[in-house]
């Protein structure tokens, strides 16, 4: 079992299965939806896919500095610990809804947690 997390979780197909569920949760959560109100849904979905691919340990081009830069405008608008927790919670709930094994869910959550300081600009 030395496949990457991304392969074990199901690769791009898993991202595609998760994206609608995750995005729907985020948009329906009044505590964070204001960050995602971009009128262009296509663009938002592309970005959600980038987020999930990264969290699933998949191929991505983001460095810590990129994460900092991508979220800096949001930090300016007040992005905080609670928002981070909410997004992480929706990620976990999405995976559980899809029946992903607990061990894999934990690995994904560890990757998400590792971006904490960069996302919040700490």
């Amino acid at each position: 079992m030395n496949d990457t997390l991304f392969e074990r979780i199901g690769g791009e197909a898993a991202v595609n299965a998760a994206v609608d569920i995750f995005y729907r949760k985020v948009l329906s959560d009044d505590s964070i939806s204001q960050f995602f109100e971009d009128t262009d849904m296509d663009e938002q979905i592309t970005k959600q896919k980038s987020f999930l691919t990264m969290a699933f340990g998949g191929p991505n081009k983001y460095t810590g500095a990129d994460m900092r830069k991508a979220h800096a405008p949001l930090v300016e608008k007040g992005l905080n610990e609670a928002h981070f927790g909410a997004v992480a919670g929706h990620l976990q709930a999405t995976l559980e809804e899809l029946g992903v094994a607990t061990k894999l869910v934990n690995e994904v959550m560890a990757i998400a947690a590792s971006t904490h300081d960069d996302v919040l600009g700490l």
Partner: protein
Amino acid sequence: MIFAEKKLTPLDGESVLDCLLRHAVPVDHSCKSGNCQSCLLKLSSGKIDPGAQKGLKPTAIKQGFFLACQQPCELIEAASFIDAELIFSHARLVDKQFFNDETCRLLLEPVSPTYYHAGQFINLKNPHGVIRSYSIASLPSNDRFLELHVHKKSNGIMSHWIFDEFKVGDRIDFQGPIGECFYTCLSIEQPLILIGTSTGAAPLIGILKDALHSEHQGSIIFYHGARNFEGLYLHELLLELENSHSNFCYRPSITEELTSSENEHSGKIKTGRCNEIALQEMALSNTSTIANTLLFLCGNPEMVNMTRKRAFLAGVASKNIYIDPFEYKDLRQAAR
């Protein structure tokens, strides 16, 4: 930025289109929202933003074409026009009929055969250089001509020209067909919901005819919304199709009240916004049906974008929502 061998100085964050217009370069354009593809240009050197190639055909991408309205100047070192022959074909107007005072139907005969899907759009360019997008209501397998529906806007330079000056027999340039909002037979069993305001009904009637012609098995519901009864310009046709196809249901609505002389229709025509009525009815159907539904949204951009989001939150899969927002910007101030 060098454009067509002239050096232009862009403002901070300016799009290529805005920069060219500010310098009075006569560049074709219409929606300024990245949908209509009329502002296509060609890269000579520099880098294209992925958003400036959204919706382009692979062959166009390979040739370095990009949408000027979506492309920031910063990334472009040099760019130029594309040969008009590569973009425009010609057609002849063979018929012009009025559905009512503010909606007309054009039948166009392309000079060379045109492959299209009902529901896609073409860009018409009139002799004054004005460009607007119009969706195709005809079905290539049944109809000899391209059918377009034009709504007269109170200050619309193109629609006024079409209503008043465009004559049967005249030739016109067109670009396209363009767009992803059409029926595919892969979906034969899926429920279809079509929602359109005003001439948003044009692509939808095309999609409907295509689905019925392909012997679509799933249910089909067409919500057409207009201000008043006159605006339901396909009423008779849609009633007829409803009577002859058991899986098809027509749901008209208007935002004003019916006049007393129209009261005979009160059983069929609801009062309210067509998208609200559709969303309410969708909320009542079961979740597996909703998850499997294909949704087509055409017309007023606010209606389209808002309905798209609410339908998505109600459980329609994002990949199952096809949209055609009719973006109009009045561009009379633009240099020409």
